[in-house]
């Protein structure tokens, strides 16, 4: 039994306070969904959990079974049992997927896993074309193929807790179903999931035990699976319009201006590719 515990988490990116007092707990076998409007801090939460450079924890803690992760480098968090399925998986030219996973598993002392056959097996389960496994990591993959690739890697790496940052974006309905059902099956064998999404349909195949609503960097409501349906039908209006000032804060907290948020939701990456 593993528990990821986030307590009173505050996170700054640059000078912007993006998260302010977020608390939640995800344990083995559970699925927690985080929903919320663009710019509310969902991707910041996932990046902060994984320790992305530029995301500064200003208060609170992130612990895995009592071990404080917040000062550890990203790879040590992964080795402790976390996995992040990224919203926009990064292309890494010239780097083989198989070698990446072999090195990751070897660093954890898992040397007896046949990564090649495991990848083939997982690719088959979720309809990822096997020839894509020979491409450099994510290079020239479509958005949907990248998400399938993240799912396959998740299954091969077999973490304790997985954070899924909009796994459903870019996936067609069949792929969404295949990926979500694969992850659901992993929860049966103990995987805990923190699932960030805009849409209820992901939760149709990966049912959530708990749904949290993140607005302005705070969890403003939590509830059972019905909350996700309600949000899908009614939107976030009741969280946004109840307080006009708060709606104004949403824009400024995003820090990027409303126009930019519309063009690329949650794009608060402080490190654009210097060679791009």
């Amino acid at each position: 039994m593993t528990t990821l515990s986030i307590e009173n988490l505050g996170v700054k990116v640059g000078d912007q306070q993006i998260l302010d007092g977020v608390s939640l707990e995800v344990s083995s076998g559970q699925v927690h969904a985080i929903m919320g409007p663009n710019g509310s801090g969902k991707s910041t939460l996932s990046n902060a959990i994984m320790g992305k450079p530029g995301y500064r924890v200003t208060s609170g803690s992130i612990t895995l079974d009592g071990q404080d992760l917040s000062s550890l480098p990203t790879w040590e968090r992964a080795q402790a049992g976390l996995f992040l399925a990224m919203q926009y998986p990064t292309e890494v030219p010239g780097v083989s997927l198989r070698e990446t996973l072999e090195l990751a598993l070897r660093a954890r002392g898992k040397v007896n896993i046949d990564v090649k056959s495991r990848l083939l097996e997982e690719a088959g389960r979720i309809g990822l074309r096997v020839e894509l496994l020979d491409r450099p990591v994510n290079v020239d993959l479509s958005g949907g193929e990248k998400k399938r690739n993240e799912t396959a890697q998740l299954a091969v790496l077999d973490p304790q807790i997985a954070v899924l940052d909009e796994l459903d974006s870019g996936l067609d309905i069949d792929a969404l179903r295949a990926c979500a059902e694969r992850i659901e099956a992993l929860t049966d064998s103990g995987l805990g999931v923190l699932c960030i999404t805009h849409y209820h349909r992901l939760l149709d195949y990966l049912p959530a035990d708990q749904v949290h609503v993140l607005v302005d960097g705070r969890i403003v409501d939590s509830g059972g699976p019905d909350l996700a349906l309600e949000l899908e039908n009614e939107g976030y209006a009741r969280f946004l319009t109840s307080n006009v000032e708060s709606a104004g804060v949403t824009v400024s907290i995003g820090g990027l201006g409303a126009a930019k948020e519309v063009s690329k939701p949650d794009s608060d990456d402080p490190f654009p590719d210097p060679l791009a």
Partner: protein
Amino acid sequence: MSLFQLPSGGQSVGSLAFQERRNSARQKADEAGLPSFEEEIWRYTPIADLDVSKYQLGAPGGSMVDFGLTAGLDEEAAAVIHIVDGQVVSISVHDEAVTVLTDGTEFENLIGSVMQTGADVFSDYNFAFCNAPIVIHIASNAAIADPVLIRQHTTTDGLAWFPRVLVHVGENSEATVVEHQTSPNIDALVCPVTELKVNQAGRLRYLTVQEHGPRIWQIATQMAEIDRDAHLAVSQIALGGEYARARIETKMIGQGSSGNISAVYFGRANAQHDFRTFQRHNAPHTNSNLLFKGVVDDRSRAIYTGLIRIEPDAAGVNAYQTNRTLKLSDEAWAESVPNLEIENNDVRCSHASAVGPIDQDQRFYLESRGVPAETAEALIVRGFFGDVLDQLPVAAVSDAVNARIGELLALDGQGQQT
């Protein structure tokens, strides 16, 4: 006053006319003297530190000992030429379409025909003093499947020598040549000149592997002419040397010709890599594509300057130039200066250059899988060279260079390539 003194009795070979050509190159160089870093083409260089009085011309010659990155190519080579300290050690030819010339009328007519006057004082001295010059002649209408391998090894401390190679590819022929420069940890000056001539509809792939010891000064010049509908791919792998300069000039002189120019360089300790490239489009409907990728680590330095020159008559040209350098340490330094001179309106040209650190998103991605930080960086750096290495003409050399880069990054023995 000559910068270099010939040992008595040396170098008086060939016809009188040929000796006269060599003498006049020597006179031109003597008059010019050493360049200054104030000249644009020597900007950023340590050329003022070059003390030629340290070096002597002429050495007894030695034997090949270390085949390094080209080990294992011999069995499948169309020809193997070994030159040590300016002496021919062996020439073996296994393909009847390949002729290796070291003297005679045809040799004298060809050598110096692509670079008729030196690009600088070092290439002039090369013509004056070139030791064991080699002409490799590929017959017309021949496809040479296996590479021609030239190993030029330097073993004598304090030696200055001037390797010279000319490759002449006959019409409608295809060939691959690998030139491998090696040396142990000695202090020597090596100034090679390579002339490449690709005749109509010919195809040549020319790979230079520079694997010198850490104290070598190398000042290399490559000049290429590509005739109508012909294609040339030149690649440089530059791993060694204290100061390793390569001036690479590619002239598209025939309509429909094309040139592909690429390089991988890896600087460590105090090494300086210096590349000066020229893509000269003298004819219409010609293409060139340049991709140079390098790493500067420790206190190493890298300089890239490149010119795309498109002459007024050269319509319908596509010319591209990209230089990217990864900077792995705060004390490393790299400069990249692309230039365009375009005299025709009907062209497509672009250049891009960047010097920067490892991409933080890429590192975060690999780390988020659980790859330790240093390993992730090493994977990214090795992978950065992947697109250039994939295009090298000899797969065995690509693999060897890839493995060597992995060793330099302490990636050896970990993981497997797919």
